[in-house]
């Protein structure tokens, strides 16, 4: 039997891949943009809408980075608002295990699960640097090495809190005056060097029992966390063989913890460009890439890796022939661009030399290399192949425009996936996100 394709709809974020210079680009913050995006994704029968989180505005050379989209909503508040204007689509947001506390985040996610009738999800991330910490009570309090330990205890505590109410806790018998059943709410006690909690949870059992957990880290620690706690992995492995290797590795770990292959879905991020012919799609892909990587974007990217001022360099010329500055980092809030810098630069040089790429083309290759480029039929066939041949369970699809980025995908690719018989024709009435995704809502292990 053929495997079912699952798709998440990624609201365009604050990377250079979100093109704001396009005349059709809309607001990144007005509620109408979110509502439009969510309704369109629901029209396309996506499993869930996915939203990244902002904890601090990015900085470049000591100033706010002003080339890309900036400014976004509070994750939980916008998802709760979207629960009011959608019926079936899952609502998944990124939330830090470092700059939140289990009791509060668990009650917020349980609240979202109630308000959405069982469509809440949490992409658990483990950021811990002092730059982001400076906006929070305890600053950069957590050692890098403790990130995943805290995340794992946090997830475990959340699951215990979510299941601490018996499903039948509320009797509300007006005659006897009993509102709560006896022993309806279990005490959750947890003491370690990271937490010291003696809690009685205040949100009744939510429709999914526990909201969906998504995980994105790719390290060994990240994979272990996913194996133990996650329902979905938002991976970066989109190259076919690499994706298959990742799939085998991660799914291979599940049996040891008593989980099935389908209990953990792998939905890597994927971009797409469509055309009536392959040639037209490739031309559009090039146009979009040039808008995603403007000359100043390319230079800024290099400056972040090298930690140097490259304003005098020609973006259409070769890579700078200088060593990186290994002093204090001047770019903040980007994903590890300056990490392991020497080996990284060596790799960049190798790619640029082998493929004879200018600075700008190299950055296009790195950040604007569109996953699926072709006719709708080709893209649908490609996506299906990844799923049928166990490279992924589907994709987290991201467009390059807010809020219309997925309109074309919904109009032109989704019907072809449906024709192939591997994508849903409709949502199941009243289904929770777990049911839509087909991940077991197993009784929570405590």
């Amino acid at each position, binding site marked *: 039997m053929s495997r079912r394709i699952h798709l998440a709809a990624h609201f365009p974020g604050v990377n250079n891949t979100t093109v*704001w210079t396009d005349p059709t680009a809309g607001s990144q913050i007005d509620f109408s943009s979110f509502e439009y995006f969510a309704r369109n994704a629901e029209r396309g029968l996506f499993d869930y809408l996915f939203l990244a989180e902002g904890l601090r505005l990015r900085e470049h050379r000591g100033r706010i980075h002003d080339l890309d989209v900036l*400014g976004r909503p*509070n994750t939980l508040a916008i998802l709760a608002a979207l629960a009011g204007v959608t019926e079936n689509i899952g609502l998944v947001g990124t939330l830090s295990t470092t700059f939140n506390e289990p009791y509060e985040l668990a009650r917020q996610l349980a609240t979202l699960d109630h308000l959405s009738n069982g469509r809440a999800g949490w992409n658990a991330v483990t950021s811990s640097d002092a730059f982001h910490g400076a906006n929070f009570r305890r600053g950069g309090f957590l050692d890098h090495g403790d990130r995943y330990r805290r995340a794992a205890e946090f997830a475990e505590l959340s699951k215990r809190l979510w299941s601490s109410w018996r499903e039948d806790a509320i009797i509300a018998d007006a005659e006897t005056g009993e*509102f709560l059943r006896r022993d309806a709410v279990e005490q959750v006690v947890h003491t370690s060097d990271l937490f010291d909690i003696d809690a009685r949870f*205040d949100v009744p059992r939510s429709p999914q029992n526990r909201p969906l957990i998504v995980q994105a880290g790719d390290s060994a620690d990240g994979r272990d966390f996913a194996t133990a706690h996650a329902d979905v992995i938002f991976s970066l492995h989109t190259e076919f063989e690499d994706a298959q290797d990742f799939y085998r590795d991660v799914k291979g770990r599940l049996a040891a913890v008593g989980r099935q292959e389908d209990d953990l879905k792998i939905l890597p991020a994927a971009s797409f460009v469509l055309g009536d012919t392959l040639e037209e799609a490739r031309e559009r892909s090039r146009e979009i890439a040039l808008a995603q990587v403007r000359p100043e974007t390319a230079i800024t990217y290099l400056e972040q890796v090298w930690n140097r001022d490259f304003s005098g360099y020609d973006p259409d010329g070769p890579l700078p022939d200088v060593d990186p500055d290994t002093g204090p980092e001047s770019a903040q809030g980007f994903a590890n661009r300056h990490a392991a810098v020497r080996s990284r630069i060596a790799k960049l040089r190798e790619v640029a030399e082998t493929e004879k790429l200018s600075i700008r083309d190299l950055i296009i290759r790195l950040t604007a290399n569109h996953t699926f480029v072709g006719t709708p039929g080709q893209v649908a066939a490609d996506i299906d192949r990844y799923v049928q041949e166990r490279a992924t369970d589907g994709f987290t699809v991201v467009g390059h425009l807010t809020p219309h980025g997925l309109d074309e995908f919904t109009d032109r690719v989704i019907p072809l996936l449906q024709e192939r018989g591997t994508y849903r024709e409709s949502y199941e009435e009243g289904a929770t996100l777990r049911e839509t995704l087909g991940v077991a809502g197993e009784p929570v292990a405590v």
Partner: protein
Amino acid sequence: MTEKVHIAVALDGAGWHPAAWREPTARPTELTTPGYWRDLVRAADDAGLVLATIEDALTLEGRTTESDAGIRRDRVRGRLDALLVASFLAPLTRRIGLVPTLTTTHPEPFHLATGLQTLDHASLGRAGARIVAGSSPQERANFGRRSDGPAGFPASGGVEDDPAWEAAFREAGEVVEAIRVLADSWEDDAIIRDVESGRFLDRERVHNADFEGEFFSITGASIVPRSPQGQPLITALAHQSIPYRFAAEHADVVFITPRDAEDAAAIIVEVARAAAEVREESEPLRVFADLLVLIEDTTQQAHATWNRLEERAQISTDARVVIGTAETVADEIRALAAAGVDGIRLRPARLPADLVAITEQLVPLLEAAGVLHQDDGAPTLRQRLGLPRRVSRFAAQEVFA
């Protein structure tokens, strides 16, 4: 001329009487469902009420003075996060202000600030917050992060007699200040989308909060661009001198609990005196009087219902209780209006029953009597209350620089 007032409603569980959930009109098994909250707030919105506050607490037993609250099974238990309930309601309502209760001791001020800004975006300018100071021992155990805080209400009843409460109010003040600074951190026109220069925003118009307090600090700007109201409406419930001073310093609306109209007039004087010391005249502080109401078609029915509730559970409340017909409540409101309050916040004894009575009987009566401020279509909650849109402090700096 008749003095006019705004009408607000305070929503909590099955209503403000602890036995309200046992009434035949109650919906006790639906208190954490989206449909329950949608029905309540839409009814209030359709009736033209100016705002709805939503109670919250970070403990199972809620904010209670009952010493055995932790083990009681005859009270409503279980609630939803109020800020998220308000956010959910934002696109489902049109005019009503959405004012969730925020605890200030444990949550991250940065998250509270961005949550409120997002609520303001989603509601197109109807966001507010009811700020609560302090924490209970159970709250602290739930979070497990800090042990400082009040042990309970001081025996004297006066928070000024307990240094831990004084500290809690100072911290709540810092949280409000952080919310306001972060709301100001993006000036109105910071987003320029200048294709020519390739700049999405004008970074001269986005400012680090650089907030340094006694209890926490916040370095960066908000992640949320400036919202329709500029700053959300800040409200606080206050019964005594320290809370009055807190409200005078930090709030846009203060909810007071007068015994009667005369007491209301006295409190207004005290609040005004506190306000005169700490705020500009251009930033008025609106005073709303709280009334806990039970409304039936006849006075007799109302008292019979109240007695039934009280037999089942005795209420302990800070607010004046009004039991009777819609006329009875309207008379009280007229007296308080004459005493000078700007608005009334009604706490329905039973939900949804007393909210239905408010929207279907009381509001039309007040309208007919000319006591009610008509909705003049002002675009935001602040403006509807006659409060100015706050200019970003950073924009003001530039003018004077």
